[in-house]
């Protein structure tokens, strides 16, 4: 794939996700905390999960960029690695918006088990996106094929830098579908409540 197109596509998705996260931050707390089922994540936990996972790539990329990016000449083509390509394909939603396969979450990335989530989770998510966008700009003059980064699947599995962008962005896309579902369910519940019990709704 062409490096420039890859960078442009990923940047566009990240900007959209950031804008959405900013809008979500303004929603009422009840919507942010709404769980479709008692054991399912709410919106804040979804975003915190993305922080726990994407943070590994952001920090890894920042480190390898600081050490090596300046010395490598621009490479106009990026070829996904075997594992990086495989995992990215199984992670990102298909063009029609469906999810390739369900996955189990690692315990260390399951917010209810590792310290919860709050409004600050949204700020951290926006910060991660900002840093990834800055790295993508620097990627316009280096070689994403020749730098490697430890993946979120464990330090043994390392992704090429290009895949270390593609995987978390695809993972975020997948969870943004879930985020919209959860928020739609929260909105549904609010309108039902207001239709049947108008006095129970309090505007803050």
């Amino acid at each position, binding site marked *: 794939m062409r490096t420039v197109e890859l960078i442009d596509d990923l940047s566009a998705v990240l900007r959209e996700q950031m804008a959405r996260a900013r809008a979500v931050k303004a929603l*009422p*707390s*009840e919507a*942010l*905390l709404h*769980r479709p089922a008692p054991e399912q994540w*709410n919106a*804040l*936990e979804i975003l*915190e999960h993305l922080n726990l996972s994407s943070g590994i790539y952001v920090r890894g990329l920042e480190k390898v960029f600081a050490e090596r990016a300046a010395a490598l000449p621009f490479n106009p083509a990026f070829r996904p690695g075997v594992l990086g390509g495989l995992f990215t394909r199984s992670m990102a939603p298909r063009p029609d918006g469906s999810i390739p396969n369900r996955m189990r979450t690692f315990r260390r990335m399951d*917010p*209810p*088990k*590792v*310290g*919860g*989530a*709050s*409004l600050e989770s949204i700020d951290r998510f926006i910060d991660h996106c900002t840093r990834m966008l800055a790295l993508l700009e620097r990627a316009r003059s280096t070689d994403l094929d020749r730098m490697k980064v430890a993946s979120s699947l464990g330090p043994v599995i390392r992704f090429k830098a290009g895949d270390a962008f593609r995987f978390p962005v695809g993972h975020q896309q997948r969870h943004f579908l879930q985020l919209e579902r959860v928020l739609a369910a929260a909105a549904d519940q609010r309108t039902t409540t207001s239709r049947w019990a108008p006095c129970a709704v*309090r505007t*803050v």
Partner: protein
Amino acid sequence: MDLVRRTIERYVRLTENDWARIAPCWREYAFTRGAHIVRAGGVEDRFYIVKSGVQRMSFPHDGEDICVGFSYDGSWSGGYDSFVTRRPGRFDVRAVTDSVLLGIGHDDLQRLYAEVPVMERFGRLILEELLVGRAAREIELLSLDAEERYDRLFKRSPHLLQLVPQKDIASYLRMKPETFSRLRGRRS
């Protein structure tokens, strides 16, 4: 925001003019279960009124986490020691269930104390209340045995057992989880 006004008016009467200055200082904060609301070692900048959920205050000691209290709907929450002293606090506050808190920043509260006379009175009254509560708890811990502490708590807050893990209540009552479940078995 109704809740903030109702809570303050438990202590003092507010004019519309007072309220117009107080209301913009409060903001809503959402925390999911398990989230840190206050971290030991950090300087706490906010003081909270609980809108929903249960929170647990504790401090780390000897590798253990000692529970010193709970907060729920309508009560205060936060790391009050650090909020007042502006120094690193010793307490953790964590959400036991998903929680919505209404918070005010330290600077805003100080400004309200200076500009809205009735707020300073409010500040004194809640401090008095907190102080009386601490004294009662100290006496409870020093003079009552485990069984009496257990009975006293469930007379005061019978709903707590449904809301909070047993090990946290046991820690709050300064007893081993085994003692707690033995007492509980005997009572039911």
